[in-house]
């Protein structure tokens, strides 16, 4: 009986698919904040937001995933905020001062702010939070690194704190404006210990109601919220009554969950699904640029033959990035030319257009480096060794597909690329130990200091410097870049660093990361913060 019904259903599905599938409707509204806001937003309602991976841990001070920041951005406030145009504006701190030497930051805190559990927000709370993050026993996976050379926090009076650093650290304001350094209630943290992640308490527009790992996370409106930063569009409490976050680990069901009405907003859609939803009037597609590093392959500078600059440059010229982006990412992503995405602070456009696809130039460079096809098999040789490269790939992020296209493109200039698709831990270990010629990795972040993780020579052993570069000039620029507070001078330094990275052909950049989200058309006021991952759900309302 059941099987008979199955057969009929399959037949019908076949007919529907053959008939062209769902009808295409209107064109989408891309970007972050392009909707018209003539109508008064309606109050109330429940929003279901689809997250991608279920975070392993959810404490923003301890854990690291972007997925934890998506819900928690609505639970926590930060000392300062970063506007979409990159300015730092007051948050829980009304104003701040930085000492001449860049070692002391004084924050003047907003009064009459209370955590969701009634604990007053004050200087002591700030000290408690920052000390908690810096404490090695917290085993922080991200926030501690973001605090840089943090020494201590001094309470000057009830509403004034002073953060002391051991060396100047320009990314501090950027760090303090992120949810990973959000202000948590000291009372709740002390009360719950490791279980705090299930009972989080902030000062933000939504209260943390319930978290059932791998199933859902529920937030409800904070009726007392009256201290929203200027980056938000309205003041007072949020519009929505409740937000439920659910986890859609399998990319293929994300669009289905949206189409079946189970989710109102969905994160990280596969490009082919985004394409379909884009032309469906029931949904709005959000193409949110994510700052930080692009999808890039690190080229190992210590292992022959990629230790030869000419070979690395040849690989860059041999790569037709346009066709990779068009074929795999369906033109949702811009081609990447350097080590930073264009939305990142300090991004240098000087690298644009470098190493444009030019197979002729690739061949000339390989010939110059002594690689010639001597036996007519289509693969170049030198001293009897074929020009064979190894790439370690993870199975996500379309890396196997990108690898296959690279393989074909490299083959046409006489380079054999061997692809090893392995589990993430194995890929990380192989690249860490320098067994690769090409290894993909990317870190997001709005501050250019994200480059320090992957290009400082101190991180070549045991860190994430997977091109294994040890370049004194680059070290000098990156160190200076972190310590220079003047934004103009800092941008110059990082521009030089980006040029240097591409001069040395340390990476093969492929595409800038764009976070493809979609929402039902009834979802109004949705915009994402400057990091591209974190939605400001405070302003969201549901059209009846």
């Amino acid at each position, binding site marked *: 009986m059941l099987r008979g019904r199955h057969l009929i259903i399959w037949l019908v599905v076949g007919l529907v698919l053959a008939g062209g599938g769902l009808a295409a409707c209107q064109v989408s509204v891309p970007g972050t904040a392009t909707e018209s806001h003539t109508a008064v937003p309606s109050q109330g309602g429940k929003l279901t937001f689809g997250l991608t991976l279920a975070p392993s841990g959810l404490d923003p001070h*301890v854990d690291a995933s972007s997925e934890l920041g998506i819900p928690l951005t609505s639970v926590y406030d930060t000392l300062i905020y970063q506007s979409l145009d990159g300015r730092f504006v007051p948050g829980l701190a009304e104003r701040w001062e930085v000492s001449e030497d860049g070692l002391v930051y004084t924050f003047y805190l907003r009064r009459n702010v209370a955590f969701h559990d009634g604990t007053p927000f004050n200087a002591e709370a700030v000290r408690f939070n920052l000390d908690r993050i810096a404490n090695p026993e917290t085993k922080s*996976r991200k926030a501690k690194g973001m605090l840089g050379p943090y020494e201590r926090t001094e309470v000057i009076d009830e509403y004034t704190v002073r953060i002391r650093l051991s060396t100047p650290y320009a990314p501090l304001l950027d760090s303090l404006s992120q949810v990973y350094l959000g202000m948590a209630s000291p009372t709740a943290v002390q009360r719950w210990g490791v279980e705090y992640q299930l009972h989080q308490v902030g000062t933000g527009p939504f209260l943390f109601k319930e978290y059932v790992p791998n199933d859902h996370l529920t937030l409800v409106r904070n009726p007392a919220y009256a201290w929203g930063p200027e980056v938000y569009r309205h003041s007072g409490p949020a519009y929505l009554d409740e937000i439920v976050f659910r986890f859609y680990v399998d990319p293929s*069901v994300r669009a289905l969950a949206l189409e*079946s009405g189970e989710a109102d907003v969905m994160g990280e859609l596969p490009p082919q699904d985004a394409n379909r939803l884009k032309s469906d009037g029931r949904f709005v597609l959000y193409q949110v640029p994510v700052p930080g590093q692009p999808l890039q392959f690190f080229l190992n500078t210590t292992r022959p033959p990629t230790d030869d600059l000419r070979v690395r440059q040849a690989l860059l010229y041999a790569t037709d990035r346009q066709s990779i982006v068009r074929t795999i990412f369906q033109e949702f992503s811009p081609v990447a030319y350097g080590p930073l995405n264009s939305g990142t602070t300090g991004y240098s456009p000087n690298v644009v257009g470098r190493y444009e696809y030019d197979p002729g130039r690739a061949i000339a460079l390989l010939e110059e480096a002594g690689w010639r096809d001597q036996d007519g098999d289509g693969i170049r040789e030198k001293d009897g060794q074929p020009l064979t490269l190894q790439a370690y790939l993870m199975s996500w992020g379309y890396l196997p597909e990108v690898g296959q296209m690279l393989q074909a493109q490299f083959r046409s200039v006489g380079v054999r690329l061997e692809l090893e698709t392995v*589990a993430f831990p194995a890929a990380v270990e192989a690249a*860490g130990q320098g067994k690769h010629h090409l290894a993909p990795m990317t870190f997001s972040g709005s501050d250019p200091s994200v480059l320090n993780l992957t290009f*400082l020579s101190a*991180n070549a052993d045991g*860190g994430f410097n997977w091109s294994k570069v040890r370049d004194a000039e680059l070290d000098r620029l990156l160190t200076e870049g972190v310590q220079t507070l003047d934004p103009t001078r800092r941008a110059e330094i990082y521009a030089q660093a980006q040029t240097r990275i591409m001069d040395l052909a340390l990476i093969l950049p492929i595409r800038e990361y764009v976070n493809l989200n979609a929402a039902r058309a009834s979802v109004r006021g949705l915009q994402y913060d400057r990091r591209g991952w974190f939605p400001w759900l405070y302003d969201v309302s549901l059209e009846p």
Partner: protein
Amino acid sequence: MLWGVATLVFVLMRLLPGDPATLMLSEGGGSATAVTELRAALGLDESLWVQYQRYLFRLIRGDLGTSLFTHRPVVVTIAEQLPSTIELALAAMGVAIVVGGSLGLLAALRQGTWVDALVTGLSVVGVSLPIYWSALLLIWVLSIWLGWLPATGQGGLAHLMMPALVLGFASSGVIARLVRASLLEVLSQDFMVTARAKGLGEGVLLLRHALKNALIPVITVIGLQFGFLLSGTVVTETIFSRQGIGRLLVQAILWKDFPLVQGIVLLAALVYTMMNLSVDIVYALLDPRIRYD
């Protein structure tokens, strides 16, 4: 036996490539110094022998340790996810037995007819269809197209139906074929001819004599299929966005969360042992001859 499994999983997890501290920092980024510090904080810089001793010592006291990634006790993390997997596995088992059993019965009774051929064909399809594919198809039809059932998530019968159908259907093929073969064998036995000659009705004949005898090999396979179902929950839980131990295990392995993997594998070993034991007990209940052996 549990000691053997505990040691094996300890060794295997360390043989697999990947350092947990580096992996933990790979999401947010970290310097080489941060990696070293975290490794020390997690006790991963100590010798394997020291780590193994500590692990066994804890295990003896019934302490499975703390997950590296969730920072919470392994027991609690597993206990949160387990009910969902048990619910799914049992429901799928029910589907497999009902669907597989009735199809097998039908095929045996209509041996050699088109019904038999259809059942055989369907059971091949059931065995060979990847869960991944049938799950997406079912979501498309029942949720998007007909709007009858929720596509993902959990809570209540409606959420359980599709995952249980997908997973149960995959197992029902094997059961159908086995019930058919076993039943045909029993039906051709002499005691069946005797029973029929005594004038017993077809219903009694089939249920009391034939089916009861035919079930013995089927029970063994159902026991084994339970293992298959548990492994099938990995994919099913992921696609249907359900909580569960299968999904947890995959996450734990991918992140090299040693304590969590060790805890789940030990639990699985325990479940298999219990399953074998209960199969033996059911044997004895069904067939008094086994009791006297």
